[in-house]
């Protein structure tokens, strides 16, 4: 198990290192200059030059790369070009919104998807199965932003149960924040739940044909007992993979939902920073996201190993 972990850790760090180089180089070739952007239609090139110097954009490429990477290692991500505050604080504030939103959405989608998948699989071919999978098919097809707008029109503008957007900030209280994240989480969760339930269903079906399931039934367990005691655990492996992918996707991929609900999440930070050429923020957020994806893959790998002992032994 230890060797398994250390091997994974090594690949984790080398991936991160390569990622910083790729990210830095890509940002270097992006056309457009943050200082010029901030001067707008003004003709004052002198002020733009002064601003460029003030932002430290005149240093050499290597100097800036190493400055950036060593800064990150010590937790200093630099100062945002446009906001003029530390990038780490900006990202941290956005994480306080994006991570809870993602977790909320994933919990919702898991809570919906796993029972739906199991029920559909165990009633395969019946009307229940067809209906559930039909709904799931629609769930996959419906774009989440359109669904989000429907939710807003119903629950915010018509019923006025929820505000149409915005985030009050955690100091306003847990429940208020949870409430403001509810509609966005539902909009994010539904398509994910649809995908997840389909994966869950096919995974359960596959497991039900395994030899050990037959053995379990042969020793006297009912189909249901066999499924819950032996099948589910094995059927969860592909679901975990999907969940891991969904977490990293939702973390920054919620940008359209964030815009619709005017939530200050990571996705919007990246989008706005790209538009305003606040490249130091873009670099840092992208690196953090790469880090998150790599870490999640790492954790999912570990989770596999926990669920399936063969995986740990195989690596020894």
């Amino acid at each position: 198990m230890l060797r398994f972990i250390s091997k994974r850790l090594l690949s984790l760090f080398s991936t991160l290192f390569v990622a910083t180089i790729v990210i830095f180089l890509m940002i270097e070739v992006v056309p457009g200059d943050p200082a010029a952007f901030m001067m707008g239609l003004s003709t004052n090139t002198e002020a733009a030059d002064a601003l460029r110097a003030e932002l430290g954009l005149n240093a050499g490429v290597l100097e800036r790369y190493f400055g950036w990477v060593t800064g990150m290692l010590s937790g200093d991500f630099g100062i945002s070009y446009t906001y003029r505050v530390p990038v780490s604080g900006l990202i941290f504030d956005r994480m306080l919104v994006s991570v809870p939103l993602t977790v909320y959405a994933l919990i919702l989608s898991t809570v919906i998807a796993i029972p739906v998948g199991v029920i559909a699989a165990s009633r395969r071919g019946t009307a229940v199965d067809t209906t559930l999978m039909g709904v799931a098919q629609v769930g996959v097809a419906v774009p989440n932003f359109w669904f989000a707008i429907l939710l807003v029109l119903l629950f915010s503008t018509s019923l006025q149960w929820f505000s149409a957007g915005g985030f009050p900030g955690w100091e306003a209280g847990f429940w208020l924040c949870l409430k403001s994240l509810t509609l966005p989480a539902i909009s994010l969760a539904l398509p994910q739940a649809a995908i997840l339930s389909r994966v869950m269903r096919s995974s359960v079906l596959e497991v039900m044909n395994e030899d050990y399931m037959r053995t379990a039934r042969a020793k006297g367990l009912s189909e249901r007992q066999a499924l819950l005691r032996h099948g589910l655990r094995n059927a969860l492996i592909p679901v975990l993979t999907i969940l891991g992918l969904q977490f990293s996707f939702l973390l920054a991929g919620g940008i359209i939902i964030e815009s619709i609900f005017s939530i200050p999440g990571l996705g919007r930070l990246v989008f706005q920073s790209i538009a305003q050429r606040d490249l130091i923020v873009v670099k840092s957020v992208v690196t953090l996201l790469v880090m998150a994806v790599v870490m999640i893959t790492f954790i999912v790998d570990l989770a596999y190993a926990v669920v399936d002992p063969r995986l740990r032994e195989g690596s020894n």
Partner: protein
Amino acid sequence: MKCLLQIMMIWLSGICASFGQNTINLGLQLEPPNLDPTSGAAAAIDEVVYGNIFEGLVRINQKGEVVPGLALFWELSTDGRSYVFHLADGVKFHDGELFDAEDVRYSFNRARAAGSTNAKKYIFEPIVNIDVFDPLTVMITLNHARTDFLFNLGLGDAVIVNESSAANNAFNPIGTGPFKFDKWVRGNSINIVRNDNYWGGAPSLVSATFKIITDPLSAYTAMMAGDIDAFPNYPAPENLFLFNNDANFEVVIGLTAGETILATNNKKAPFDDILVRKAMAHAINRTELINGAMFGNAVPIGTHFAPDHPDYVDMTELYPHNLSKAREYLKDAGYQDGFTVSLKLPPPIYARRTGELIAYQLEKIGIHVEIENMEWAQWIDQVLRNRNFDLTIVSHVEPMDINIYANANYYFGYDNQEFQKIIADIDESSDPRLTSELYKKAQIKIAEDAVNGYLFQLGKYGVWKNNVRGMWDNYPIRSNDLRNVYFEGGN
């Protein structure tokens, strides 16, 4: 279920009742990058801080007039070169520092210093001397008389800052205005609170929150859900009619200082030929543009000047929509078979929508337009800086900016000595009547030369709850000055 619903309703109405009527939520489409109006050019900065947090010696009101600000009154010498400003007494910055003439000297010296990041440094260039007579009297001497100097001192770029706090104004703005900065949740909202010690009498609002709502549809739902009390510059002209039909809201369509133009690269063939530019002017159908792109909510212009300004000259009939005339001009220029050009469009919705219609209109006279959509940063790089473009559509939102045509190096490349002379005369003029004549001459000149396609003045679409009073109807400058805002029937 019904019972649950009732409980929810009661609970919600409780929330609404506890919501006082002396605090306002405003919608803002673009978040300001920072809160220092003396650095950079972002209009969104002024939309939050101008007149609220920061003040200049003079102030520009919603009619575009210059009114006293921190200077209660002033005297202008007979040669028009020296202004003596008499400052308000007992004014304090929000951090308790006393305001006096030294702050004026500091602020202007900072703005004109080498290495200053002030986007309108030119305002301060004519200054030769700033003399502090006593803490409440300051004399500013210019190298020559300038009629626009006083107006320029009313812009956000010329607000008075304090030496001890100026460096931090980007994130912790300290001014002398009727509101103090409270907090900024980036990406979400900016909160300002009443300055109870305001020298000009505290405003009636206790606090104001600017909520950042980028998505046009979300702007609509936020208004309908009651999250927002007022959207000073509502971003979606296409659904304004929904508010018009709703008695709970008031819709005020005003004007901005934004001349929306089909900017044309005058240095590049075939646009260096005035006949081609005239042909394009005749091909443009402004009514169609305004109805199609702005849903009828914009005022046509025929030159680069705000139509609500007293000196405005209506030039829209100089080159009326006339396709046969347009084709004739093209033929005279030797382009009877037409040609292909690119149209580079920045992100705002007015540019994208207008661009599609312009392409359609120019196609009719044989000019094939290839649209290229781009981000602002790309646009600034390609169009504004490197002049690598044929046509573009952009709104010039700076007030009184016809002088950009005197800069031969500006992106549309209009290099005309006669025009440059007019602007030089305006700069030198100290006689308001002469200035007014010269401004008219300038407008006629660029209209006749068809430098750019003059399309329409960008509207300001104010939407607010019907009990909100005192919001600005127009944007002569980008400001949401909240000093006179209150709720009818509120406390």
